């Protein structure tokens, strides 16, 4: 589905046009593009930091320090959201190590997940995750890959009501279980959903992203680079010269600008182990964003490669 100019502007209003509209036309070198969380109108930087694989470094202190440097660069560039899961091996304690080292930056938006088949074990797991991070409470807790989602969502709704978590959501990845996700989005009081979406995996544009905009649900986009496969594939060719019009000088920025310029998308969360790459990723949320015509051109170009 193409995004018409009307939907683009309507979506921008829903997703926080007051915050993003200046960025659509003019460069903002100081701050990255911010989007509003529909349920609260809280603004959040449109490029976050994922931790899948990249932060799972065990107790290797040299690599833990590298992760802390990536986090430092992320916060310095203006990033907010760091996303993790109990499934990601040692990533939670590694994030906690980095936050401790950085003095617990105030700008952090902590997003974690509950991932256990037992509904009764959910609260205990969330508490263990919170201790790993060393935060007073999570900003967002999501049901990982819809595992035992009914039981966990009930827990999360209670936790949100009790003020133990600010936002709740559910996640999927790599395009799986979208029918169930759609059903949950239609029926449950979600603040966030997380899904995979990029310039080649555009199925969410058909139903899920419009539905998120309609229902006032923030959207986190995971695996924007298909775990690096998409970048490696595109890297055989140069970034088109016309991408300079939107300030995209690398394929990573090209892809991220495509993602975060969708009006229903709130945050994209690329993962990286490189300080240079985290700066490059956050920089993708600066400057001019592609309009619907440019987005169509970007899709056509990638399809023709």
């Amino acid at each position, binding site marked *: 589905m193409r995004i018409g100019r009307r939907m683009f502007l309507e979506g921008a209003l829903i997703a926080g046009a007051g915050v993003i509209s200046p960025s659509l036309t003019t460069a903002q070198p100081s701050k990255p593009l911010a989007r509003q969380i529909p349920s609260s109108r809280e603004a959040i930087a449109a490029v976050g930091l994922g931790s899948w*694989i990249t932060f*799972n*470094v065990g107790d*290797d202190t040299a*690599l833990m320090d590298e992760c802390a440097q990536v986090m430092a660069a992320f916060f310095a560039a203006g990033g907010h959201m760091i996303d993790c899961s109990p499934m990601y*091996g040692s990533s939670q304690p590694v994030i906690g190590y980095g936050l401790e080292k950085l003095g617990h930056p105030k700008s952090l938006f902590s997003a974690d997940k509950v991932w256990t088949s037992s509904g009764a074990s959910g609260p205990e797991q969330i508490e263990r995750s919170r201790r790993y991070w060393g935060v007073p409470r999570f900003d967002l807790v999501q049901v990982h*890959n819809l595992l035992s989602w009914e039981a966990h969502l009930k827990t999360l709704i209670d936790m949100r009501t009790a003020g133990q978590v600010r936002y709740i959501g559910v996640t999927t990845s790599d395009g799986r279980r979208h029918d169930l996700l759609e059903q949950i989005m239609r029926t449950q009081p979600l603040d966030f959903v997380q899904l995979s979406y990029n310039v080649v995996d555009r199925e969410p544009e058909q139903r899920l992203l419009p539905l998120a905009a309609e229902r006032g649900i923030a959207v986190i986009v995971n695996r924007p680079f298909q775990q690096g496969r998409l970048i490696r594939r595109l890297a055989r060719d140069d970034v088109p010269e016309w991408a300079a019009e939107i300030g995209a000088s690398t394929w990573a920025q090209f892809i991220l600008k495509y993602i975060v310029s969708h009006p229903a998308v709130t945050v994209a969360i690329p993962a990286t182990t490189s300080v240079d790459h985290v700066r490059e990723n956050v920089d993708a949320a600066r400057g001019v964003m592609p309009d619907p015509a440019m987005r169509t051109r970007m899709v056509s170009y990638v399809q023709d490669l």
Partner: protein
Amino acid sequence: MAQWWSYRPADLLLFSPRVYWRMFELQNAQMWPLALLTLSAGFAMVFLVIWRPKDHGRWIAIILALLWAIVGYSFVWNRYATINWAMAYVAPMFALQSILLLIVGIASDGLVFTQRGFAGWSGLVLIASALLLYPVLPVFSGTPWRQMQLFGMAPDPTAIGTLGLLVLARGRYLALLFPIPVLWCFITGLTLSAMGSGQAWLALAAVAVVLTTGVRLALLRRSPPNTG
């Protein structure tokens, strides 16, 4: 897991190759100079097999049991499980293998290392891979020497070396000692394959050698004696 058939092995990989190979570097650094001792123990077992002094079968079983306990605890449990939660369920298998080696090795007829011919050559190839090939793999993979995998320190050469020794052995309960090393070779083969490492084939080839040898020995036992 919904739509499990849509997952590829690489989708289930929780860590990067860089972190995986760094584990061996940290293991070697932390366990030095014990690593020299475990490697020497591997060569000592080869001499025990060749010279067959009194109680050599028991000594080999005890040494292997110790090595499986060391690798299981220091590497699989303490190190690998920190980046791969599934290893928390695999580490007890290393303890079980250690116990099985002690029980089978110390039993009255224990292990007797008398296999010759095809089985003998298969065993020697596997042992040579574990003791001599694995330490020099960094030459072929271009990784630092510090990340070499040593017998008795890293699980892959330990499992393959153990299979080599078991292929050389006879014993009433010998079959009990094969499943865990073979299972480990499958696990590591799949993991390395998902990482895109050519070393995956070494572990899978070791399983193929063991299976081929087992089938050949079984066929030989079934064949009627040649009466001329």
